[in-house]
């Protein structure tokens, strides 16, 4: 048995550090094999749901596409010379060196979910921008749950080679609100020297889905990593806490997350950044809105080298119901000369702001909606307009649930 498998085996019962525990026995990795499809022929999916998760089924305005349903990768395509999109298993066959990138950033024995992903590895996406390749059109990846009680385990690898730039949008969704399932996603991203990755993830899960992504990002000298995470739809339980390793000189990472928890939703979401490269910079911005659900919003910045700079901002708003928002910003300066700061605020909608807008002629409902929309609108820089529009669209769609 390989070293990886051995380590995984030892961790099969190791609970995750955060989030409610999940009984893996409740879910099955069995699922039918679905045939390969052209993007336009993808009929088994609910197109509306997909689009809401950021996947454009026409493939227009995208430089590549990847669709996995349960365990089957049913589609991969690419239109840009410099960008490769492959199922991870296929990529491992083609590129023996890829083994080196697997489980290098995420420890396989982190918890039972990483162990499960290693022992029951299904597939996932491999996306790579060749050296110097710059693609302004995003690559889209869709992970879809269809079968009852399905446990989907994916392992994704993204590599931006030196001087390249790539934008990725991932949509995750389910076939119908009744589907029960567990999604475990391992993602390891490599931003090489002077490269840039923007990664926008829109989760469109359902009431009965548990989600355990396990991600880590390596950012080398001059590299830029932008991460936007949007989860505004119901989800039974979501816990993620990716780590960015800013090891290169002048490496930059920016995390934006926009979360909405309705009654019955539990989210434990955060990000961690280890700043060890000289002049590395990181910014984390979180917006957490509860209409009755629970959100734990974490953030941790570790400053390991003099001159690194990090700022963390978390704003939470409890709009109605007996929701809970628990903000836990953490700063860990390990040497002299680090510059780390945070601001966190959790509150209700300010009456003063509502009245201000009412005095301008907006009805109370319009005023509240306007303020909440503003609250969720984070200025996101460095991503293509189509992705900004996609995020705005997701926010708009969630608005009806706020009143």
């Amino acid at each position: 048995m390989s070293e990886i498998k051995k380590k995984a085996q030892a961790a099969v019962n190791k609970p995750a550090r955060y989030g409610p525990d999940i009984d893996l026995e409740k879910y099955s990795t069995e699922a039918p094999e679905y045939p390969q499809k052209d993007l336009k022929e993808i009929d088994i999916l609910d197109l509306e749901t997909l689009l809401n998760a950021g996947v454009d089924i026409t493939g227009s305005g995208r430089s590549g596409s990847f669709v996995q349903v349960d365990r089957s990768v049913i589609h991969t395509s690419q239109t840009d010379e410099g960008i490769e999109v492959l199922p991870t298993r296929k990529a491992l066959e083609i590129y023996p060196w890829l083994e080196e990138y697997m489980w290098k950033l995420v420890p396989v024995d982190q918890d039972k979910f990483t162990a499960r992903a290693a022992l029951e590895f299904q597939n996932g996406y491999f996306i790579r921008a060749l050296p110097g390749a710059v693609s302004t059109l995003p690559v889209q990846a869709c992970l879809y749950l269809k079968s009852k009680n399905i446990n989907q385990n994916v392992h994704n690898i993204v590599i931006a080679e030196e001087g390249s730039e790539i934008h990725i949008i991932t949509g995750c969704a389910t076939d119908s609100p009744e589907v029960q399932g567990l999604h475990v996603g391992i993602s390891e991203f490599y931003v090489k020297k002077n490269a840039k990755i923007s990664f926008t993830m829109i989760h469109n899960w359902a009431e009965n889905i548990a989600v355990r992504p396990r991600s880590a990002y390596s950012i080398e000298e001059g590299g830029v990593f932008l991460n936007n995470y949007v989860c505004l739809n119901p989800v039974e339980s979501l816990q993620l806490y990716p780590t960015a390793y800013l090891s290169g000189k002048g490496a930059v990472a920016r995390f934006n997350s926009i979360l909405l928890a309705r009654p019955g939703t539990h989210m434990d979401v955060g990000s961690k950044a280890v700043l060890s490269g000289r002049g590395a910079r990181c910014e984390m911005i979180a917006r957490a809105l509860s209409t009755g659900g629970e959100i734990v919003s974490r953030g941790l910045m570790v400053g390991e080298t003099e001159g690194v700079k990090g700022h963390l901002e978390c704003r939470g708003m409890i709009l109605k119901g007996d929701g809970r928002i628990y903000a836990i910003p953490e700063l860990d300066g390990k040497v002299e000369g680090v510059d780390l700061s945070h601001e966190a605020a959790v509150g209700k909608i300010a009456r003063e702001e509502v009245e201000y807008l009412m005095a301008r002629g907006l009805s109370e409902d319009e005023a509240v909606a306007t303020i909440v929309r503003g609250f969720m609108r984070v200025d996101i820089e460095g991503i293509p307009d189509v992705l900004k529009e996609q995020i705005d669209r997701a926010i708009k769609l969630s608005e009806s649930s706020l009143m």
Partner: protein
Amino acid sequence: MLLEIENLSVSVEGKELLKDVNLSLDKGETRMLFGENGSGKTSLLMAIMGLGNYRIESGRIIFKGKDITNLPPYERAKMGIGIMFQRPPTIRGLKVRQILDLIRHDGSNPEELAAQLNFTQFLDRDLNLGFSGGELKRAELLQLMAQDPDLVLLDEPESGVDLVNISLIGEAIRKLLQKDLHRKREKAGLIITHSGFILDYVEADKGCVLVNKTIWCTGNPHEILEGIRKNGYEGCLTCQR
């Protein structure tokens, strides 16, 4: 009369702030409201707009012949009342451009109005976030210009504003109040001023003083200001009415 306030008494959390206030304002009239700190000037404006937890204990507010005493603020706004807040709140994520689009009356052009106030570079900023004193006032005026109300309530438009900004602001207020029209002037203004500086920029028809929770006297604004400067607000109390 455009606005008629009759025997208005207002309290907040059981504390009486205004008692038997009577005030009426004609179409086209500009009125200055004086009064020392804490005398209830802001409370009066808030009550006219229907804001805050101000309780109307007795009396009525009539606007354009309609009793608005119990109307929600947005209906008063729709009827043509606009207010400049003394301390406007910050609304994150809401761009100045966006609020203008939400509140503007047909035919107004936010870009043009912003240019008049030298405010173009603020259109894509979050509303009031990090604005200086003068910028806050200009943002308020810009919104009022977009709304174009018939009755403009201004709460200390000159406070915290430097000399360069004050003439810009004075000019904007003159426009809002159609000061260049004479016979055909329709817009009315009720302007709170502590210092009276705004009188150097905007001519007022009358002034009145809020003392002892009520409108004590009404008269020539310059004379009233002169009197306050000489004898203080206590002087008002001994003054013959």
